[in-house]
């Protein structure tokens, strides 16, 4: 095993309840853990870096001020944060589009092509990445070989020296965990029936 040692059972993670109860240390921890995911969502969607940083800041402020509306039973803290971030990104995109339209009406220029990715897709990706990082080492490593290196089960067995049956079992369990998490925290239609709830 070349991966970093990782305990199978993490210490009880009480970040979400502490965040909800107003512990400011938990706010900083949440920022340390999930700030980069929120910023990634924002930078993926917004061309202007300053806008993306503003949205990241606004997301954490709104989350903190609206922490009462966060229900840990309904999803993870990162899923909730990304849901707020997603809405703020869309708000910002609409505001920018409005400004652009005004300017372009004046200038009589054509509308620029909309090339930004789908925010739901970015959120889903981040949720899956978060779950992938939480999987037991064996499962994560084998899924990474399948996802990133496009290896077959058999090739993974060869590369890792793990018996094929074990590879299959790890990948199946890993995929099941990813899917479960996606259904709880994902943003895309199909990930779950209801939309995001919670603070803005």
């Amino acid at each position, binding site marked *: 095993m070349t991966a*970093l*040692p*990782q*305990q199978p059972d*993490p*210490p009880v*993670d*009480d970040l979400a309840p*502490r965040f909800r109860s*107003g*512990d*400011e*240390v938990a*706010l*900083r*921890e949440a*920022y340390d853990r999930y*700030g*980069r*995911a929120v*910023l*990634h969502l924002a930078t993926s969607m917004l061309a202007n870096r300053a806008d993306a*940083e*503003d949205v*990241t*800041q*606004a997301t954490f*402020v*709104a989350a*903190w*001020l609206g922490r*009462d*509306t966060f229900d840990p039973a309904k999803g993870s803290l990162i899923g909730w944060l990304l849901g707020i971030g997603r*809405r703020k990104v869309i*708000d910002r995109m609409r505001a920018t589009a409005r400004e652009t339209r005004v300017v372009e009406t004046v200038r009589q220029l054509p509308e620029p092509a909309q090339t930004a990715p789908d925010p739901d*897709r970015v959120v*889903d*990706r*981040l949720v*899956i*990445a978060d779950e*992938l*990082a939480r999987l037991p080492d064996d499962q994560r490593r084998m*899924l990474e070989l*399948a*996802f*990133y290196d496009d290896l*077959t*089960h058999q090739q993974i067995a060869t590369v890792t020296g793990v018996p094929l049956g074990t590879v*299959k079992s790890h990948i*199946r369990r890993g*995929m099941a965990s*990813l*899917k479960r998490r*996606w*259904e709880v925290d994902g943003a*895309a239609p*199909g990930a779950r029936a209801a939309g995001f709830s919670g*603070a*803005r």
Partner: protein
Amino acid sequence: MQHLEHERLVFLALGESDADDGESTHLDTCAHCGTELTALRQVAGLGVETQGLGDLPDPPEHIWQGIAAEIRAAEAVPSLTEARRQQAAEDATTEPATTEPATIGQATTGPATTEQATTEPATTEPATIGKATIGKATIGQRPGGSAGGLSGPGVAGGPGAGGRSRARRRAGWSRWAASAVTAVAAAAIGVVGTVSVLRPDEPAPTPTPAVLASAPLAAFGSTPKSAQGDARVLQSGQLHLHVANLPRVPGYYEVWLINPTNMEMFSIGTLGGDSDALLPLPPNVDLKSYSVVDVSAEQYDNNTRHSGDSLLRGTLTG
């Protein structure tokens, strides 16, 4: 044909092999297997796209400083009048480089008008926030170098940059352990820490009015989702209301307290064009029953009843 083995569905989802004829026929007709395969395919597709997401760059520290400043400002809103008064006194006695103006400037923008708040320079904030005692206590206990509370590592000094390195993140579980230590430390410091983070060290001559209950207000019904607000019941017997992005209405906004069990309600005042309002509450108000804060759009129609057109609502907790 029987359902496909889950392992087989995962195989198909990963594109490792194609479904044979029998499987295809089954997948076309079996909602259970078909749905599962579709979901697994989505997950596999997303999985492929996660490459690189495990190693995203840390956000710049100034974002955190902005968060801390904005939250401090939001928490300070109820004491705005006092803060102004205090500021006037300080201006008269201290040098002009005081950190207070930034705080007050942001306080007037309120908690939700992020556009304004974020464009303000947050650079004056660390000095004030740095006085908070919990930050220092926590920094000392946390090997990772990431400070707790609203006192960011930036406050701890330049070396905070080292604490945000990839190495720290890669440290994985040791960081969880560090967090656990922090949590214990934080619990020990508890309430004192929270209070001291939110306020400067100097004993304020007029302390922030205690918030007895608060409610985030969200867009109600067909109101555009960007409309939002916050309501806080202050110990002074007033309701501080902050709103943002309310849709324009031909009439005016009115603020109500509603008893959600029987929908009885009474008006506590109207909102002008400002984003903040302080409304006196009846001294005998039962906020346990009348727990819903409602902002409605009213017409100038000599009808004192609720128009039925609610723009914002939220439930007081506290």
